[in-house]
């Protein structure tokens, strides 16, 4: 199965692309020249954006197992910068649900290149009905 692009929203597409090889598999992102900071490392903002896309996609997928067209919104994100990423590297992103309540999802995830962790992230997401927004 060929990879598909996730988060094709304005920002997701413009900052990405972020790919997913298969349902249930990791998210993939290749670091390009325009994703860097002034020190030629993956920009911290792009790293947090990638973490937010990975956590948000898994949160949305989880919410939609209960309500097909549910939307999720981040209430809080916490990102720890464990190591740097470099141009040409492929970042793998993973996330899981720590706890799901009726209205809130507690998410946790990480970004890595091979065995090297770039970022650990946690987030709290609100589950909403599209019509209510």
């Amino acid at each position: 199965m060929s990879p598909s692009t996730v988060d094709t929203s304005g920002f997701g597409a413009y900052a990405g692309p972020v790919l997913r090889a298969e349902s249930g598999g990791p998210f993939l992102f290749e670091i390009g020249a325009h994703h860097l900071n002034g020190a030629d490392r993956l920009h911290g903002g792009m790293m947090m954006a990638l973490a937010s896309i990975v956590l948000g996609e898994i949160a949305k997928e989880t919410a939609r197992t209960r309500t097909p067209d549910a939307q999720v919104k981040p209430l809080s994100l916490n990102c720890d910068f464990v190591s740097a990423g470099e141009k040409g590297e492929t970042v793998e992103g993973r996330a899981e649900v720590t706890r799901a309540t009726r209205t809130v999802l507690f998410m946790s995830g990480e970004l890595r290149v091979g065995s090297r962790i770039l970022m650990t992230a946690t987030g709290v997401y609100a589950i909403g009905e599209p019509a209510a927004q």
Partner: protein
Amino acid sequence: MSAGLPSPVFVAPPPGYMPSALHDPFEAHVGPLFERTEADGTRIFAFIADPRHVDETGAVHEGMLMTFADAFIGGAANHAAGGDCVTLSMQASFLAEARTGDVIECRTQVDRVTRAIIFASGRFSVRGEDVMTATSLWKVLGAR
């Protein structure tokens, strides 16, 4: 200071603002970003949300808001350290949505300075209403 990297689109600055000189390719990619200095010397930063910045519901994407935070809270940390810093950790709370056309303004604060670590935070607002708050930790490069 050089003029900085060009952004791919032209956006007229909000009233009272000047374009920021951006030296990080990703900041230029999502920019232009703007700044102004108040009479007391306080620097305020801004960007105008456009279709490149929004999520599938039309709200400004949290990744864009955190990129803006990293750029300018980082600038405050660098200034406090007198040199370059790298982000160790950032926590953001999303209080309200911003939409296309909104001017998102950022006010930064340095909360504590140690030899090796800077604690800094920021408030992000649209028309005076907070849309995000962020707190962060920065490592001063070269300090042990």
